[in-house]
């Protein structure tokens, strides 16, 4: 898709009845973003011989396995050694490779933070960290495996770009965009099967938020699994005459400050929704912009600074306050605070 087409698509947003053309009405098709990642990586491998993939003994779960099978010479399973994986990725990138390094989000970011910080981001190398199993929807494995800090970690490093795709379509586009992007990128992916929200016309660009629904009473700014929840919340709010704008803020860094400012100005109240600790993630990133550009009431839907635990993913979303109903309630609360 060229730039013109993107702009056109952006213009179309919100025009058609019931939202932009690329937004699916039928959301019964489901696919985990990690699965979409695996497919996109394979396509990328076919297009670009400089693409090299690393994993740390989780290639079945991260879905790098398909790439490994087709391009065994360009795939390196580093074993259970995330630090070494990131250091090796840096060395390969120094030599001109575009490296995708995958593991679970908790280990990719936390076990190798210093490597990502000092050896990848400090010299701004072309390493793309595609981390799966982010957030509490990991489910049964429990709190030790549920990364709720990874966005805060990656966002705090200069030169790092942080993208949290909402569905399979966006993941595919984000993987391609990450490969084309100069420098390090963090892609946050999930284990859980989630609805495919977007059709191919979806105008993904790193650093650009996408408006999924128009509205001027409140803006719901979400990413990852919470985008579907935000859309559902908007539907519910509409029944009571509250018109909620829904924004997919898939890029957390560099954040789309213009879109946030416009939402603050035009809606006067914001809700952020993320599958992450409310300390340091999307909510913080939006709050930083809001207070500096246009202070308005905000509510932060997310994990309220407690560790995850075992359970079924949907049970956990409920337990941790990450459902459409939670987003809806938060929206009502901020709307009530407006202009006070």
């Amino acid at each position, binding site marked *: 898709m060229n730039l013109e087409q993107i702009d056109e698509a952006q213009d179309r947003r919100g025009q058609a009845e019931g939202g932009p053309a690329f937004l699916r009405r039928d959301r019964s098709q489901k696919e985990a973003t990690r699965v979409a990642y695996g497919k996109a990586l394979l396509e990328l491998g076919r297009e670009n011989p400089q693409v090299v993939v690393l*994993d740390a*003994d*989780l*290639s*079945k*779960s991260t879905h790098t396995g398909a790439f490994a099978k087709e391009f065994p010479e360009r795939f390196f*399973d*580093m*074993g*259970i*050694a995330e*630090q*070494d994986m990131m250091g090796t990725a840096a060395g390969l990138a120094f030599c001109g490779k575009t490296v995708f390094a995958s593991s679970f989000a*908790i*280990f990719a970011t936390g*076990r190798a933070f210093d490597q990502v910080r000092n050896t990848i981001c400090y010299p701004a190398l072309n390493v793309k960290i595609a981390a799966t199993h982010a957030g509490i929807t990991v*489910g*049964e*494995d*429990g*709190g*030790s*495996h549920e990364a709720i800090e990874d966005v805060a970690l990656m966002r705090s490093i200069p030169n790092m770009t942080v993208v949290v795709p909402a569905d399979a379509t966006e993941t595919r586009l984000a993987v391609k965009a990450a490969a084309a992007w100069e420098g390090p990128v963090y892609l946050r992916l999930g284990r859980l099967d989630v609805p495919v929200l977007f059709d191919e016309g979806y105008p993904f660009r790193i650093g650009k938020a996408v408006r999924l629904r128009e509205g001027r009473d409140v803006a719901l700014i979400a990413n990852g699994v919470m985008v579907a929840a935000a859309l559902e919340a908007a539907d519910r709010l509409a029944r009571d005459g509250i018109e909620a704008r829904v924004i997919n803020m898939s890029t957390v860094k560099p954040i789309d400050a213009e879109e946030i400012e416009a939402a603050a100005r035009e809606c006067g109240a914001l809700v952020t929704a993320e599958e992450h600790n409310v300390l340091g993630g999307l909510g913080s990133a939006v709050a930083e912009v809001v207070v500096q550009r246009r202070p308005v009431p905000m509510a932060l839907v997310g994990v309220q600074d407690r560790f995850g*635990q*075992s*359970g*079924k993913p949907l*049970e*956990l979303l409920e*337990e941790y306050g990450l459902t459409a109903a939670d987003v809806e309630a938060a929206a009502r609360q901020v709307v009530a605070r407006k202009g006070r």
Partner: protein
Amino acid sequence: MSTQLSTQLLDPEYAFRPAQPVLSAEERNRLQGIALTLRRDIIEMTAAAQSGHPGGSLSAADIVTCLYFSILRHRPQDPHWPDRDRFVLSKGHAAPVLYAALAEAGYFPREQLQTLRRLHSPLQGHPDMRKLPGVEASTGSLGQGLSIGNGMALAGKLDGRDYRVYVLMGDGEIQEGMVWEAAMTSVHRHLDNLTAFVDYNQLQIDGRVTDIKSLTHVGRRFAAFGWHVLEIDGHDLDAIHAAVQDAQRTKGRPTLIVAHTIKGKGVPFMEDQVEWHGTAPKPDQAKEALAQLGAGGKEAAQA
């Protein structure tokens, strides 16, 4: 009944086999019965949860049995007894075998085993010391147990307590550099009150350890780091017992027991199969597995 471990696998340099049985027939019988119970529990728990890691739990069942039921000094009714021996399950994904042992030892009612991995259950997917009595360390992120064990062993020496610390690691796990940092600490600090096991089942998630990141001569590696090393058949209860006794007698340095094992041990269709690392048996598979394991564990053994 199932795949046999070739004792030729043991590194001749460190191979350790007790010259004669160290357990009485009765004792061996009792422990075998318990090991069978743990294996049955592992199958039932993971089947009930439809989630979890049977392979690495089964491979460690004999080691865990031997520790909890003939070696560890502990009081299930008083889990915080300061003089208790400590066991750290560094390969936290093998939680089912730990939970089965703790239940069997009486730390909590057996019925709780069925709540594995359920919301609000104390039996978390990976051990959580704050939720379940008897769990000595919260693990799950691999590579950390040896450092934790070192800390416990240092505390023991500081406090003049004579408890011992046991750490169980996976073979894939020792690809984590932190293990080697810790291995240097154990030696440098002369932690002869610490004994570590490697559950050397030769499989990790993505395949055979040799294919992913080779760990040949693991005994020699630790020996070069200054450890006292023993290589044993990790399903031979006499060998496990004798090796631990040898460790207890070894002064001035820590002991590593390379326990050659079979992943999925006891359930033929799971044995040495990488697929069973983190896949729970479906109900019919669980039934088959239980049938293959044989009846009743302790009860059957006593019969």
